[in-house]
C-alpha cells in the first residue's frame, strides 16, 4: 500500500484529527495530539494497515514555530504467506507527526499500544520535555506528573536537547562550566 493510500484511509476514518499529510522522502501524516491514541490503535489493529512495530519516536524542537514535534516511525511487518519459515515482508513504512505547543507540551502515551514506546517516550520527555500523559512509568514532582527520566539523573533540571537549553552552572557541587559568564561559549 502506498503512503498516499494510507493517508487516505486515515483521513477517511478520522477526518479532522488528521491535520495534514506530507509525502516527501519521509511519508507521514500530522495528527492532532488529542486523538493520537485512537489513531495509534487503528494503525496497529486495522488489518489493511497492521503497523505492529514502532521503530522510533523522535522529538524535534522548533522554537521558531513555538512547537515541539514527536515523530513516530512505524513499520508493518507481515509473516510470510504459506511457508512459515520464509522471510517476513515489510508491507509499508509510515510516520506520524504530532505537534504540540512548546509552552505546555502534552501528548497521550501510546505505551499500551506499542510497549516499545515506553522507553522512547521517557527519552523524549527527558531530552525535550514532551509530557506523555498516562505513561506507565510516571512520577509526580514539582514539574507535575511526567514520565520518569531515563538518560539524565532523576533530579536533573531542564531538557538538554532544546534549542534554548542552558547547561547548568553546577550540579550537586560539580561545576558545569568553567566559563561562568557565557552560557553557550563559542570557541
Amino acid at each position: 500500500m502506498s503512503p498516499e493510500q494510507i493517508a487516505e484511509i486515515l483521513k477517511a476514518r478520522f477526518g479532522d484529527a488528521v491535520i495534514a499529510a506530507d509525502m516527501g522522502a519521509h511519508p507521514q501524516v500530522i495528527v492532532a495530539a488529542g486523538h493520537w491514541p485512537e489513531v495509534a490503535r487503528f494503525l496497529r489493529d486495522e488489518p489493511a494497515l497492521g503497523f505492529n512495530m514502532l521503530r522510533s519516536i523522535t522529538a524535534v524542537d522548533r522554537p521558531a514555530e513555538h512547537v515541539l514535534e514527536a515523530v513516530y516511525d512505524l513499520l508493518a511487518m507481515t509473516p510470510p504467506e504459506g511457508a512459515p519459515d520464509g522471510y517476513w515482508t515489510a508491507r509499508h513504512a509510515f510516520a506520524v507527526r504530532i505537534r504540540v505547543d512548546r509552552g505546555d507540551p502534552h501528548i497521550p502515551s501510546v505505551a499500551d499500544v506499542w510497549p516499545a514506546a515506553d522507553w522512547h517516550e521517557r527519552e523524549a520527555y527527558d531530552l525535550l520535555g514532551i509530557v506523555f500523559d498516562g505513561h506507565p512509568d510516571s512520577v509526580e514532582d514539582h514539574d507535575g506528573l511526567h514520565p520518569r527520566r531515563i538518560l539524565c539523573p532523576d533530579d536533573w533540571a531542564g531538557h538538554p536537547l532544546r534549542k534554548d537549553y542552558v547547561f547548568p552552572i553546577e550540579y550537586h557541587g560539580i561545576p558545569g562550566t568553567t566559563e561562568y559568564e557565557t552560557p553557550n561559549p563559542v570557541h
Partner: protein
Amino acid sequence: MARDVLLESVPDLRADLDRESMAAADVRTEEMLVNMGPQHPSTHGVLRLVLRTDGELVLDAVPHIGYLHRCAEKIGENLAPYQFIPKTDRLDYLAAMNNNHVFSLAVERLAGVEVPERARYIRIIMAELNRIASHLVSFGTYGLDMGAFTPFLYAFREREMILDLFEAACGARLTYSYITIGGVTHDLPDGFVERCREFLDYFEPKIDEYNRLLSYNQIFIKRTGCVGVIRPDEAIAWGLTGVCLRASGVRWDLRRCLPYEIYDRFEFEVPVGLPPGGVPPVPAGVPAPKVPAGTCVGDCWNRYFLRMIEMYWSVAIVRQALDGLPAGDYRSKVPRNLKLPEGEVYFEGENPRGQLGFLIVGDGSPIPYRVKARGPSFCNLSIARRICRNCLLADIPAIIGSIDVVMGEVDR
C-alpha cells in the same frame, strides 16, 4: 497477531511499575534490594540493574541507564555530517564500521549523493567483517559470563586478525571513521584482498570449533536453554530487532527484507530461532549445526547461537564481495559544506545488534537541524525488565548477555 495477545504483554508493565513497591522502606524483610552495576563484571558496560530478590529468586529487575550519555544528538546539531562520523563510531563502539555505514547512507539519501561501485563493495566488506568481529566479542563475553573463560581468548585471537585488517585499511582498531559520506576515506591497501581471503579461510572452521566447545556443551545449554524466552509477538511489540527478534522465530533482516546498499546482489540466508532438532541454514561446505535438546525458540541459547550462524554468512558475503570487487573510485566528490536540503529522512540499517536508525532533519544548511540515533540496544534492553522476572540471580547475566547490549548505543 491478535490484539489480546499484544495487550497481554502490557498489563504487567502497568501493575509492576508501582513505584511504591520499589521503595526500600517497603521491601519485605525476606527480600533484598541488590544493585548490579554500574560497575560490575557482567553487565556489559555501565548498566545499573536494581534487583529485588528473595534469596536467589529475582522478583523484579529495573534497568537504569544513562551512565554513558554523551549528548551525541546535541553534538549532531553542531557538526556537519562528515564531522559527525567519528561520533557515530562511538555509538556502538564494537561495530563502528556499521554505524558509519548507516549514518552515511542516511545522509546520502537525504542529500542525494551517489556512491561509486567500488566504494559500495568496500563498505559491505568492512561492515560484514565488523559484524564478525562484533559477534566474536559477544560470543567471547557470553562464555565469560557463563564461566567458560577459554572461548573469550579464542574469540579475541580471531578478532585481532580482523582488527589488523582494519588497521591496515584505515589506521584504527576500534573507532574507524572509515566509511564516510560518498564512499570510504581511503582505498584498500595492497594485499588487503589476499590477507582477507586468508583470514576467511582460517576463520571459517573455527566457528565449528566454538560450537563444539561452548554451544553444544550441556552445562551451557542448561544455563541458557529456555531462559528468558521472548515470544515473537512480544518481540515485535517491544521493538526488538536483530538477533533478539530473529531468535523468536521472526525471519526479519533488513538486508533481505528492505535491502539497502547492494545487499541484494549477494546470496545469503538469515538464520532464525529453531526448536530442538532444527538445522539452521549454513553455507555449503560447512558442517551443518543442529539445535540440541533443552532449548526452545526465543531463549538465550538461540539468541547466542544465531550470532554464530550469522558469522558463517558474513564470511560468505565477504567472499562474494571480494570476488566481485570492481576497480574504480573509492569516494565520490562531496563538497565539504554539503548542503542538507529541507526535509527529513529516516533510514535504518542492519547492525550486528539490531536495526540502527538515523532520523536526520535538514534545514538547507550544512549542519543538520536534528540528528536522532535509534540505538538497537536501547530498544532491545527495554524488554529486560519484562523477562528478568521470576528467574534466578544467575540467569540475569545470561539474559543480559544474550541481548548483547553495548551501552554506547543505549545511552548515546
